[in-house]
């Protein structure tokens, strides 16, 4: 009896402590986004005085409306959206088609072709040669520089190929007997059956496109109108931090600098919020697919 009581006490302690830890860590993950949000909708003077910490005060949406008047931001949003939509759909179609082709036993040198693609996952030439190469191919300062280099994704091809191999072969074969060609089989049989895996790679591909900014920094230097939203946000944050550094260093600062730094804070926070929202919107879909994708990833091609 005594031992039993001690055990439940220990149990309770355990549950309390680890529950507390998880609550704290979860808050740490979720609170910053909430904090960003309340700081973009509260009275700007209170925000800049650091007065908005737990609850919004003086709610208004001027900041979001003000962003509509920033031309840079509109361009950057269009670029981000179009690269995400176009880049993801092309990548998914390519992965699906290659994934299908490499399951076709009759292909000349099928294994070599497959290995030739997959092996590129394990080496890369490095950032600078990659950049010089893209430049040589005329894709710098060019919107297609976001899309074409990211078309063939070996890992996604492995996922699709593994998935197709798990489907019953008879479906394909009977279609071939009925006289269908490869394109018909791919479009009418393989694509519909592969929806779950294609959704998985689409979601991950879209998040990747939406989030990437290094390629924008490296490739689009001469054409600011091709910057992505993330790159623009990075520029704003950098400016704001540099101004803050100047002010803390007690350097030569003018009232204009102070004003710019303060405006920079509001604008940066609002742009950050605008950039996070699409991720939060597709997040439920990811929840559904990511575990599946992860599990498939464990299966080697």
């Amino acid at each position, binding site marked *: 009896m005594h031992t039993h009581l001690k*055990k439940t006490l*220990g149990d309770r302690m355990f549950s309390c402590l*680890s529950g507390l*830890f998880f609550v704290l860590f*979860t808050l740490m*993950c979720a609170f*910053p*986004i909430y*904090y*960003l949000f309340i700081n973009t909708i509260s009275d700007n003077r209170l*925000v*800049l005085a650091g007065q908005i*910490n737990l609850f919004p005060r003086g709610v208004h949406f001027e900041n979001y409306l003000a962003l509509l008047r920033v031309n840079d931001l509109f361009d950057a949003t269009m670029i981000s959206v179009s690269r995400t939509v176009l880049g993801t759909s092309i990548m998914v179609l*390519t992965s699906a088609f290659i994934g299908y*082709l*490499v399951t076709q036993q*009759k*292909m*000349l040198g099928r294994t070599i*072709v497959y290995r*030739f*693609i997959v092996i590129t996952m*394990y080496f890369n*030439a*490095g*950032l*600078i*040669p990659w*950049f*010089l*190469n893209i*430049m*040589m*191919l005329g894709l710098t300062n060019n919107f297609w520089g976001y899309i074409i280099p990211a*078309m*063939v994704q070996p890992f996604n091809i492995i996922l699709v190929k593994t998935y197709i191999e798990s489907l019953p072969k008879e479906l394909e074969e009977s279609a071939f007997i009925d006289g269908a060609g*490869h394109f018909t089989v791919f479009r009418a049989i393989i694509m519909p059956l592969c929806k779950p895996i294609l959704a998985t790679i689409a979601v991950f591909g879209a998040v990747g496109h939406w989030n*990437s900014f290094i390629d924008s*920094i490296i490739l689009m230097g001469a054409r600011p109108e091709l910057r992505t939203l*993330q*790159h623009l*946000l*990075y520029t704003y*944050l*950098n400016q704001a*931090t540099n101004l*803050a*550094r100047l002010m*803390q260093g007690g350097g030569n600062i003018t009232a204009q600098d102070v004003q710019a730094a303060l405006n920079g804070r509001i604008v*940066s926070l609002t*742009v*950050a919020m605008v*950039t*996070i929202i699409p*991720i939060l919107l597709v*997040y439920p879909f*990811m*929840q559904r697919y*990511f*575990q599946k994708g992860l599990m498939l990833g464990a299966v080697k091609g």
Partner: protein
Amino acid sequence: MVKQKSNILMSVFRVFLVIAFVAAFIPDLNPARLSEIINRNASLFTSAISYDTVGRGFERALDREWIYQSTLVLTYVGAIVCMLAVGLVAAAFCMSLGNTRLKRRGLMASGGAALLGAIGIIMLFVAQAGFEGAPNPDRIAPMFPIGIYAFIAIFAALLVVSAAMWFILPQPSKEEDDKLSIEPKYSLFLMVLPFLVLVVLFAYLPLWGWRYAFFDYTPGFALAWEDFVGFKWFTSLFENAATRRDIVRVMTNTFALSGIGIATSWVPIVFAIFLSELRSNPFKRTVQTLTTIPNYISWVLVYSVAFALFSTEGFFNWMLISLGFVEEGKNFLIDGENMWFKMWAWGTWKGLGWGAIIYLASISSIDPQLYEAAMVDGAGRYRRMWHITVPGLMPTYFVLLLLSIANMLSNGLEQYLVFSNPATSAPIEVLDLYVFNLGIGDGGNIPLATMIGMLKSVISVVLLFAANKASKLIRGESIV
């Protein structure tokens, strides 16, 4: 015998086709480079897909009427016609893999390509004369590209070979289906071929860029043999005192940050085990959902979160002041103290929830009978965790650990780039960031950056193989 002979000839024919195709992508063989002003790195292909390649640099010359616009347009159109001929060449190559009937079509296509190419070349000749005879030829530096001769030779060879093949190739036999057909093994290969070209262009061709590591390269100029410097940049890593100091600092940062990551790689396991021990399912799901969000936001957004929370007006200072720890807030983002720890903390904030998922999945696949048996034997909660759950997770952990050791040199660029500012950059400049700064940022030393990147790539591949070998030896299973 005849069949064999024609097969050999067919292969020769295909080789010609491939040469013609590849030549269109080699900048040195660009027949449309009729002036030294036209970019030296432009191939026939790039000249044909954008007028900008041909026309850039002539704005002033056009304004001053040193050259006529029509000359430039003719150059561009000539390039397009030549490129169309090359497109026909590609089609001819595909057809040459079909049955006899299709092969004969292929011969027609390649003959047509040769004639079309001839038209393009003539246009380029006329344009060339336009350059030479321009009102002010000195200012537009006309030149006669070697590419014109190369393409004349290529198109002439194609014409001759396809004409010869036309007579040598046997007529389609009566038994053969009179439809055009191609064996599945070739047609499937042709379908995947465009994608293989993409793989070559974007994954293999960059390796060719390693040559920059052996030259004194200045951006904007082409590589020339006079600039070949051999291993100068490699030895400068050790001999140049300033570079050496940088490298030592950068490598210390790289190993320290990777080391901290590897040393704390068990944290997600603890997270997963303790989470799975909790009873309430809705609570577990909520924790899982909310702690994985940070994984999906980019490092720029993580930095904007840091910016919101840790700058002078931010939440963290407010908290410190309200709790009475400090009198006045300060901006933590421009404070270079404890950067390694901060970077680890942000990495954990972003990755912990996500990192735990794979372990949670492994835990749910552990046989429940093991736990029941242990309970019957009187094992308590901690003993069950330690003797059943932990060993059950070890294989997964081991693979991830080996991979993180193999990736030791690749800390990634984004995290350290966004958190860098003059006050913080020294302790967080890792190898990837150093290469970035050196080659693309202010460093301006492309050869050295290429050399370092090259060494890093080679070492990473070796480490990966070693990790794989270790896994095979210890677990009898490979990881790549």
